[in-house]
């Protein structure tokens, strides 16, 4: 951790609100990229982002600085996001799968509009990727962490990260090609 960041952290630990605000401002974008990457841009994203910093606030004294502060926050954010995905899955299982629909084509008007641009299409494709692949792709390709850092955050061997990354990209390309074929 760099000395400036360390100093801000020390002040935050002493109860300086401005210092903690500074930490939020410095890492907000990183946390947002992780949470939105995993969950998509929904109403619960802001809440999960807040919860990430609240959890850090409570565990600040236990943070020893072994990893970068950003990495530590990303780890909290990704754990919360993956828990939210599990919760959604349980909820869907409980309520049933809903009306049958094709997994690949773009489903509704809103999705069609979003899919009109390539970025939207990629974003939609990412949301249809299984959580294991999604988390690796978000950390490695969106957040820009190295393979080693990604492995460290997810507590996985580097080989597993590399293999999930390769399979995840292949699957994502397949999903996007499928959606593209349907819309064009």
């Amino acid at each position, binding site marked *: 951790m760099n000395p400036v960041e360390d100093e801000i952290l020390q002040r935050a630990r002493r109860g300086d*609100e401005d210092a*903690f*605000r500074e930490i*939020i*401002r410095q890492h*907000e*974008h*990183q946390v*947002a*990229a992780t949470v*939105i*990457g995993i969950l998509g*841009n929904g109403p619960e*994203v*802001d809440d999960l*982002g*807040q919860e990430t*910093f*609240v959890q850090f*606030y409570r565990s600040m*004294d236990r943070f020893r600085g072994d990893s970068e502060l950003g990495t530590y926050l990303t780890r909290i954010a990704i754990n919360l996001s993956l828990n939210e995905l599990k919760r959604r899955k349980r909820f869907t299982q409980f309520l049933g799968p809903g009306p049958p629909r094709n997994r690949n084509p773009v489903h509704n008007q809103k999705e069609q509009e979003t899919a009109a641009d*390539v*970025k939207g299409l*990629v*974003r939609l494709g*990412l949301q249809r990727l299984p959580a294991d692949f999604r988390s690796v*792709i978000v950390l*490695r*390709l*969106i957040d*820009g962490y190295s*393979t080693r850092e990604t492995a460290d955050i997810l507590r996985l061997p580097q080989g597993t990260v*590399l293999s999930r*990354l*390769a*399979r995840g*990209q*292949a699957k*994502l*390309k397949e999903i*996007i090609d499928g959606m593209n074929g349907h819309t064009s």
Partner: protein
Amino acid sequence: MEKRVLKLLYRSLDSELKKMDQERLDKALAESEELRECRADILSLRQILAQGAARSFQPQFDERVMSRIRSVPTIPRGHEVLLDSYRWAFRRLAAVSLLILMFLLSVAVIQDGLFPQDAIFYVSDTAISRILQVPVF
């Protein structure tokens, strides 16, 4: 397209390949237009992921975090841990007790020990005579 070569292509973007694998991939790339197109697609996909991601919450995010922190009552950490462990233990204890209770009740009902028919439907002679002697009007 050969699956093995495709796998090498993906791997090559994130880690260094063994010399033999790299040569195999280079050869396949030189020979296959389709593979070159595929690599271009993957690279552009990676670029879109890196640049196109949404990276901000709604405005005043820090304010919302601070007010959420203030709204949660501060419990001393030791107490919090103790409370959590009590909650954890009690939830499991309650679930197990409920299961045992339901099991015992089922056994009692099945064996006709706890709620025998006599106990439910039995009316003593005195009670019957008393009932019969009560004038209706």
